[in-house]
């Protein structure tokens, strides 16, 4: 059992110290996810609160089928963010993107997938990433890290919608096959 799984058990028994411990261990990563997706500090903080309040109530629902505890918490965080983004008025999403993202996205510096290719500790993961071509990688990154729909990815890259869909589809196909070998 991992340390984080053990903490979940303690949380399930109402142990707030374990709850704080898991918060300390995981919240910076989860906050990074929320911040990247929501683009706004206050919204990201709100999401993080919701995630941990949810965790307090459903810690006993963790299942190894959901991956590691961190992956499970990442899933909860991403789902919360994406659900929220999808319900925002379109103009607000556009505003968020224009304010905080467009200039950043033009650079590979903020592309986590590009960064991963150089990170030793992510060797296995980056092995799969390296198999994606530039277009596929960029599309997957915009969708995964920035919560963009197909249409938004296409608009952002100024490419036809069908092209964006195709690149994402091929990228996912490749990742599935590659990661099954890991």
């Amino acid at each position, binding site marked *: *059992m*991992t*340390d984080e*799984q*053990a903490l979940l*058990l303690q949380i*399930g*028994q*109402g*142990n*707030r110290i374990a709850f*704080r411990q898991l918060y300390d261990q995981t*919240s*910076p*990563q989860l*906050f*990074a996810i929320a*911040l990247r997706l929501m683009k706004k500090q206050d919204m990201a*903080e709100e999401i993080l*609160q*919701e995630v941990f*309040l*949810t965790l*307090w*109530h459903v*810690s*006993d*629902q963790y*299942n*190894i*089928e*959901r*991956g*590691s505890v961190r*992956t499970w918490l*990442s*899933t909860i*965080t*991403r789902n*919360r963010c*994406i*659900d929220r983004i999808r319900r*925002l008025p379109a103009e607000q999403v556009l505003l968020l993107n224009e304010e905080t993202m467009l200039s950043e996205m033009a650079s590979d510096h903020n592309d986590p*997938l590009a*960064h*991963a290719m150089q*990170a030793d500790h*992510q060797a296995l*993961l980056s092995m799969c990433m390296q198999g994606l071509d530039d277009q596929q990688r960029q599309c997957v990154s915009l*969708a*995964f*890290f920035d919560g963009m*729909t*197909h249409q938004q990815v296409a608009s952002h890259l100024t490419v036809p*919608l*069908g092209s964006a*869909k195709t690149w*994402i589809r091929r990228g*996912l196909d490749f990742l*599935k096959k590659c990661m099954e070998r890991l």
Partner: protein
Amino acid sequence: MTTPTTGQQPDDPKDLLNVIAAQYVLGTLSNSARLRFQTLMQQQPALRQLTHAWERRLNPLASLLEPQDVPAHVWQQIEAKLDILNQLSGNHSAMSQPENAGVVDTSTTDTSLINTNAASAKPLNTPTDNSKNTAKSEGQNQAVNDSFWQPWAWVSTAIAASLALFIVFKPQPLPFTQPPVVVQTQPAPSRDIAVLSDDNKQPAWIVRQQGNALLLSQINNYQVPSDRDLELWSIQGNAVPQSLGVVRIQQGKAVLSVAQTRLLVDDAILAISLEPKNGSPTGQPTGSVLYTGKVV
């Protein structure tokens, strides 16, 4: 309409479901398609497993982001909300730490326990239980099926095809499981049963019972954020909060149908929390508790 793939749609509808599950996890589905997918996922274990497999594949990518410092007030607000929820559950002692609670022993536990014994490990009938969710588990105790990616013995082509078509092409969102808001058209004997106040003890809502309906009248000017809903809860003694439904305000009023009027007995506490759109996804309050009041 959200078409999750390009003109190169998979011919096999089962493959199409696989593609949709991947794109749900990736996050490219529209809001309506996501809602339909989430509803179906709750009903279809096979679809849930398929989605979880994609979660395991894709979501570790999130670890590639550089961790960010979290402001201290975030934890303080989490604690404050837990305290309020705990208070509402009538169990001040719930959060008291068990002996040696500060020592988290990770060396003697068995990985398999995480799925099978987590819930039962909670002390029964302790106050702590009351503040924690007992809603049904999503796939809890399901074993990981190593042969999951083998040919889809677990779902028929016809079912897969209909599900895929439903998710992709159905124009309207599915109905939600929350108790619906209804318009009260039949006059019925009524009485005011509670006044809900905010943290500053300022009255904010008057709750009137009319037969099996609740009429809520807003006193203050609180505006619900556009991406949120209010949800009304009943808390009796040490029991876990029971949802009475999502409160959708129209011109300062909201009407809820209450199937279980036993939730409105004297001394029950009513509370309104701020939840994600269409209500708490966990069956328990997850957002801020804004207003509380006792049924009289």
